[in-house]
């Protein structure tokens, strides 16, 4: 029933972070056995593939890493871990050269042959390197080819379910997983484990990330006692497609450029409403537009499906169809006329800034556990710049590979697993198979609604407290709801249950952290505390689970490189 | 199929294209003029030109057909590896021999 094997390095996730870690670990020491486990097919799941915009990097003359750094810090409302942000912007330069020269990504060029950088909102320089509007496909396809070409052990369609500590509790011993295809359990003992499961705020009614992402990594880390930070920080994208119920199209992102190019947002009565909220109208930043739409929706001025409209037609349908070819085609495939008609949109949960507290070298508080990509916290603070997401996962994924190789050299033995915990986790994962089968869909729908209504784009104390209560209630219900224990092979409903459990657990942390932060920063907006608060005394939230209880504390931000009011840029300082 | 067989097969196809056109043209010409077989044989017998023409045709067709047959056999039958090569060679050589013999019958005085 439980198959076991050992490996030197175990990587969870095959997004930008996981694949880069595999390549760099192998490069650092080819004699190490590297195993990569991923919930879907290698490189064909996760969000790195879905990156449309591109990759922020200060490569072009006129730009500088200092400028990229300052944009990141200011975008993050002074909450980022500055050492991580610095590492991010400086290493991104080398990483993009590596992607081009060694991995084989073929980014778009300027007319003179140099790399093209496009504009992305919230940045002072056009530094987003891209391949058309399908940058993620280019990056991940090239990375997966390289990983396939190396002796990396692949565990595809393997779901990690628990981090198992060593018997002495001093380090991590390995990871318990389910082979999705057979439904059998595997325990993989490893000297170093990388958590790169990519977060994924899919507990919101409207969300963009891929369906395989369900906060498993953070839920596992929380259970293992590892601290998480910035958990209230959920980034919403203002324009997700609203296609109605029972369709997975709902929530998928309609690109930012539509607003930038002059698209209009209209309420249910087809009135253009952005003027009520911001003088920049539709061109205001993501968080402002998201809040405006959310406010319209709460006021009931909605379209038939409960959102607002985006209209592009006044720019000339042919022009729109040409400029946004991919987007228009996608809408057309799904039955919508983006170029000429009205398309219903809603804000949609897009990215999770919160994550595991870690060092610049990706080490966590639990020896043997490392973290990179969207699972890690700190690099973005209260908001992530468009284009800093892939940069983050590829930069720190690579660093994690090197760090783990060095760690294994120093710690050549993995600790014996704590068999009691392993046994308990086996029982935990099979819990739904023992309970009486019930209505999982209703529970999922309720979770989506609670998070959207009470812990969503605009928050307040009463709603958050209510949300916390309701989350507790559905968690109890979930534990009493089973799935039929027939064929366990590729049993998606079992995995839906496990997804829901991770999502509920992390939803509670998000809600708790949102209650804790009594100000409004970046993605987190409290209508009862709309001010940002004093920047110089900024704090970030840290959540951890001790003895089954969730503790959330504030910790002061360390301004190790630049303080609020200062800048690394000469012209700005003058 | 690998590049060697490919070049041979496409090369012979290219050679045959004009040969086939000429061949068909002759048949058209002959039938429309109501030429008898004897007339035709009368023209071809002893002609070095026709000998070369038909020999080339036969050799190209033998090569081309043999390779083509090998491809079909590899996709539609259980034959593999050596067996395929054997089929190709046997068919090709047989066709070449039969063809050249026919050419000989037509052109030798």
């Amino acid at each position: 029933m439980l198959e076991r094997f050992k490996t030197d390095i175990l990587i969870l996730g095959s997004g930008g972070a996981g694949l880069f870690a595999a390549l760099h670990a192998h490069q650092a020491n080819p004699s190490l056995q590297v195993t990569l486990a991923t919930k879907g097919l290698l490189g064909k799941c996760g969000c790195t593939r879905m990156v449309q915009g591109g990759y922020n990097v200060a490569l072009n003359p006129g730009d500088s890493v200092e400028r990229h750094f300052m944009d990141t810090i200011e975008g993050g409302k002074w909450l980022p871990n500055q050492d991580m942000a610095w590492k991010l912007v400086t290493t991104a330069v080398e990483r993009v050269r590596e992607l081009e020269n060694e991995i084989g990504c073929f980014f778009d060029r300027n007319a003179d042959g140099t790399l093209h950088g496009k504009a992305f909102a919230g940045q002072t320089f056009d530094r987003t390197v891209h391949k058309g509007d399908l940058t993620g496909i280019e990056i991940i396809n090239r990375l997966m080819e390289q990983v396939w070409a190396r002796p990396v052990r692949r565990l595809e369609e393997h779901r990690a379910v628990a981090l198992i500590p060593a018997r002495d509790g001093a380090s991590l011993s390995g990871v318990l997983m389910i082979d999705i295809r057979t439904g059998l359990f595997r325990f993989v003992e490893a000297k170093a484990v990388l958590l790169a499961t990519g977060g994924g705020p899919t507990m919101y009614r409207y969300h963009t990330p891929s369906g395989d992402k369900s906060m498993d990594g953070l839920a596992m880390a929380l259970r293992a006692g590892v601290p998480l930070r910035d958990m209230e920080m959920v980034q919403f994208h203002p324009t997700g497609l609203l296609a109605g119920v029972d369709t997975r199209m709902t929530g998928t992102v309609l690109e930012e450029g539509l607003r930038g190019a002059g698209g209009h947002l209209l309420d249910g009565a087809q009135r253009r409403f952005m003027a009520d909220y911001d003088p920049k109208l539709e061109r205001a930043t993501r968080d402002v537009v998201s809040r405006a739409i959310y406010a319209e929706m709460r006021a009931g001025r909605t379209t038939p499906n409960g959102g607002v409209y985006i209209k592009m037609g006044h720019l000339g349908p042919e022009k729109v169809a040409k400029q946004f070819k991919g987007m228009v085609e996608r809408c057309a495939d799904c039955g919508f006329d983006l170029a000429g008609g009205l398309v219903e949109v809603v804000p949609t949960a897009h990215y999770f800034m919160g994550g595991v507290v870690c060092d610049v070298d990706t080490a966590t508080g639990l020896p043997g556990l490392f973290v990179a990509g969207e699972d890690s916290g700190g690099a973005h603070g209260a908001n992530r710049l468009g284009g800093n997401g892939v940069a983050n996962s590829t930069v720190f994924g690579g660093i994690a590979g090197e760090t783990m190789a060095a760690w294994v050299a120093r710690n050549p033995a993995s600790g014996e697993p704590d068999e009691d915990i392993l046994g308990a986790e086996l029982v935990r994962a099979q819990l739904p198979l023992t309970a009486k089968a019930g209505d999982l869909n209703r529970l999922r729908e309720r979770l989506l609604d609670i998070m959207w209504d009470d812990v969503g784009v605009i928050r307040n104390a009463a709603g958050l407290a209510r949300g916390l209560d309701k989350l507790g209630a559905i968690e109890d219900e979930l534990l009493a709801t089973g799935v039929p224990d027939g064929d366990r092979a590729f049993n998606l409903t079992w995995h839906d249950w496990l997804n829901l459990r991770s999502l509920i657990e992390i939803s509670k942390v998000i809600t708790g952290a949102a209650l804790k932060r009594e100000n409004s920063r970046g993605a987190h907006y409290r209508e009862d505390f709309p001010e940002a608060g004093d920047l110089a005394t900024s704090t970030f939230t840290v959540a951890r689970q001790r003895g089954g209880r969730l503790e959330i504390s504030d910790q002061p931000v360390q301004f190790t490189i630049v303080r609020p009011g200062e800048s690394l840029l000469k012209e700005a300082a003058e | 199929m690998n590049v060697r067989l490919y070049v041979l097969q496409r090369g012979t196809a290219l050679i045959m294209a004009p040969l086939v056109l000429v061949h068909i043209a002759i048949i058209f010409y002959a039938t429309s003029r109501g030429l008898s077989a004897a007339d035709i044989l009368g023209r071809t017998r002893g002609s070095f030109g026709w000998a070369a023409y038909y020999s080339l045709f036969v050799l190209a067709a033998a090569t081309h057909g043999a390779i083509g047959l090998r491809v079909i056999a590899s996709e539609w039958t259980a034959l593999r590896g050596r067996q395929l090569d054997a089929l190709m060679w046997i068919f090709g050589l047989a066709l070449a021999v039969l063809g050249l013999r026919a050419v000989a019958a037509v052109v030798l005085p």
Partner: protein
Amino acid sequence: MTNTIEVSLWRGKADGRYQTFSVPQRENQTVLDVVTWVQRNADPTLSYRFACRVGMCGSCAMTVNGRPRWTCRTHTSKVVENGRLEIGPLANLPVIKDLTCDMQAFFEKWQKAKGVFAPSKTKNDPIEKILPGSPPRQAADAAIECINCAVCFAACDTVRWNEDYVGPAALNRAWTLVNDVRDAGNRDRLSAVAAGGGCHACHSHQSCQEHCPKALNPTASIAGLKRRTMQAYIRREL
């Protein structure tokens, strides 16, 4: 909802059978949504695969009414025939269960065709200047946006009949690399695609090109490889 679709779904492994469900038809509904509806509301044991749901990951391809398609971007109104849908796993790959197939062979063949970049530089070198209008760059661009969905692989009868054939997607990728002036592996790559099972196994059926959801043209890429390998062969470089 008044309208329903009669949906026959493949159940089991290679020796399975079709099972029929009645699924409410919606105005906005993809084939993936139909499958999801069955798993959520009718039979929780139904297995299928998807990830991105927007046509980027190439995980969700299935056979829909006899035609391989990406299901997350196929609206039901475009494929329902007489109120019926028949959905099976992709052809030419082993079935794992129900609608999922094992894509291992597809990616192994991708490697066999040397569909992997061979660097000529390191991360310490500057990024190579490449004119966007140069013919090789344009040729590479034309074929590069493949999402490895294996729809072409499932549509190609040569793949079905010739187990050695690496297939259209792998060759299409090889062609982008042949046109990538930064790549240092073309000698090996050309030998790989010129060997048995390589580009010369393709008979230009053009089903790959007809079915590719990204409107790529593997037939043209393969033809390019045929020409390039032929030149190399004639020049005795192979």
